[in-house]
């Protein structure tokens, strides 16, 4: 992969940032082990340097950069700390993209701009207790009543929900029409009837905050309909198609971090009179891991480049997300195996990385859903 000079500097910028703000502070470990909330000062810095809004146009305070830059930021940030990557991708693509692509000028001014500036946190509410990958089974309803829609329902597993200022939410506006009866809304957290569930005690990415969003007769003004009525499914699919480039890049970063740890440890650890790295089994394992990480990386940046060239990244982004997430899990497993017992205790970074990797093949479309998308495009 040959990057432009600008992209090389984007990588240096986020790597330097991670070195100073994450590695040298041990922040990832503190959030994971001690339950420390992601510090506001850290979030403000992510916003200040525009790491949270690479693809938001400049007129709305974004960096006005491209998907390749976004992927670089996600890769390097997640390499240092997967939780920070999740925090960024939840806003940078899942909330920003529908606003960029379907928002009215007023909606962009009111929600996209403060999102890009880090003054407001957004959340993306698609998944429900009975509807995740099966978006057509959405049970949340929005009934038009004069100038407002009355929103009722519950969304679950929502990243950043415990402290979001607004959420992009899907709801059924016309029953019986399946996916064609779904619309998307921008719902402010301060409105009456908006509440949040308990924080989920997750296995990994423990630096992030996740909970349900609950809507009880929330009055949503008509102007907060995002995109056209009945087109909510299109808004969400369009968002996920490009958005998964971010998660795929995150998976590459997590995979790389596992590889980094394996290389470091096997060069230091001595058994039978020589470092583990001198054993052929280690060498073959490391070579296998590194090759797969690089292959995943190429898929990710190809999807990003396609998107930057104005082409549909649909198959490419699904392949990238599917493969990179699986590779992250495989590489994390092998890296931990190379650590032996030390990898099983929290003193070593690989223990956290192994748990963090597990979400990658689950959220933003499981590996199996990505396979459905890929096969669906190929076999239609």
């Amino acid at each position, binding site marked *: 992969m040959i990057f432009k*000079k600008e992209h090389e500097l984007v990588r240096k910028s986020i790597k330097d940032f991670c070195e100073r703000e994450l590695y040298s502070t041990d922040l990832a470990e503190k959030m994971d082990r001690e339950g420390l909330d992601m510090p506001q000062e850290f979030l403000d810095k992510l916003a200040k340097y*525009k790491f949270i809004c*690479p693809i938001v146009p400049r007129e709305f305070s974004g960096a006005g950069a491209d998907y390749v830059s976004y992927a670089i930021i996600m890769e390097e940030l997640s390499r240092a700390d997967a939780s920070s990557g999740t925090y960024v991708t939840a806003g940078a693509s899942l909330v920003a993209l529908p606003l960029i692509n379907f928002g009215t000028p007023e909606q962009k001014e009111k929600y996209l701009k403060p999102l890009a500036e880090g003054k407001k946190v957004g959340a993306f509410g698609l998944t429900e207790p009975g509807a995740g990958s099966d978006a057509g089974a959405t049970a949340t309803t929005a009934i038009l009543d004069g100038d407002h829609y009355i929103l009722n329902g519950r969304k679950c597993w929502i990243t950043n929900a415990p402290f979001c200022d607004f959420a992009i939410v899907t709801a059924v506006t016309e029953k019986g029409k399946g996916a064609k009866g779904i619309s998307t809304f921008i719902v402010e957290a301060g409105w009456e009837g908006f509440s949040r569930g308990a924080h989920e005690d997750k296995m990994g990415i423990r630096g992030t905050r996740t909970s349900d969003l609950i809507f009880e007769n929330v009055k949503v003004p008509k102007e907060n309909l995002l995109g056209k009525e009945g087109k909510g499914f299109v808004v969400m699919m369009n968002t996920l198609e490009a958005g998964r480039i971010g998660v795929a890049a995150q998976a590459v970063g997590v995979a790389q971090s596992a590889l980094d740890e394996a290389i470091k440890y096997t060069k230091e650890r001595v058994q039978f009179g020589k470092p583990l790295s001198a054993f052929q089994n280690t060498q073959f394992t490391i070579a296998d891991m590194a090759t797969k990480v690089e292959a995943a990386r190429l898929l990710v940046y190809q999807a990003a480049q396609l998107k930057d060239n104005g082409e549909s990244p649909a198959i490419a982004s699904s392949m990238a997300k599917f493969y990179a997430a699986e590779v992250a899990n495989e590489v994390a497993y092998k890296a931990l195996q190379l650590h032996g017992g030390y990898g099983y205790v929290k003193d070593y970074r690989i223990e956290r990385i192994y748990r963090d990797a597990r979400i990658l093949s689950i959220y933003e479309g499981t590996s199996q859903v990505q396979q459905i998308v890929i096969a669906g495009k190929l076999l239609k």
Partner: protein
Amino acid sequence: MKIIVCVKQVPDTTEVKIDKKTNTLIREGVPSILNPDDANALEQALAIKDSMEDVHITVVSMGPPQADVMLRECLAMGADDAVLVSDRAFGGSDTWATSNAIASAIRKIGEYDIIFAGRQAIDGDTAQVGPQISEKLDIPQITYVEGMEIIGDKVKVQRQLEDGYEIIEASMPILLTAVKELNEPRHMYIDKIFDAYKKEIPVFSINDVDITPEQVGLKASPTRVFRSFTPEVKGQGEILQGSEKEVAARLVSEFKNAHII
């Protein structure tokens, strides 16, 4: 207000190893970085720009063409423009010859109120170029700046000393050298990275500035390096244990044996 910041691209010494046979640095594969003290100097200029209207920052560096990327980095942090002083004729310059070249480049850039430089570069640790530039431009200098504010047309500076500090007030134009305690340098902004590559960075060769080949390069450099070496790794220390009296007695006796006292 016009500010000029002098910066240098240096090998990242945390990654440098010494060739034990030749006693020279192994530079191969070592990443080049913006000299850390220079980053503090630039940060101070940027902080002034953040707090005042009409501040223009020009970054200047002498070095090979590869230094271009470091200057782009400075632009991505918020500097307005950059100049690279680069010519084969400048090769091999010591601090004296380097300050001749940079001072001439600054004369060509023209107006300035403050010139910032880092205290010293991590590859040579001389701390000479900044002060020499001020001498050659005939302006005052304050080194080891660990705090500063601008009051009207003057600067009020806190100057670091080994056992304390001095407060000095001086008029502008002035040259200040920054220490790391001055501030925490910012990172690059993603949007400014893309702007940085849209800007042209002029390269000043020896023909563009008011000095002659006799004033720069190896021949114009009075510095002679007699020997460079890696300090020997000292043996492990010994911890004396026992009561205070016993330890003190043993320590005195060890010192006597070693002819230290």
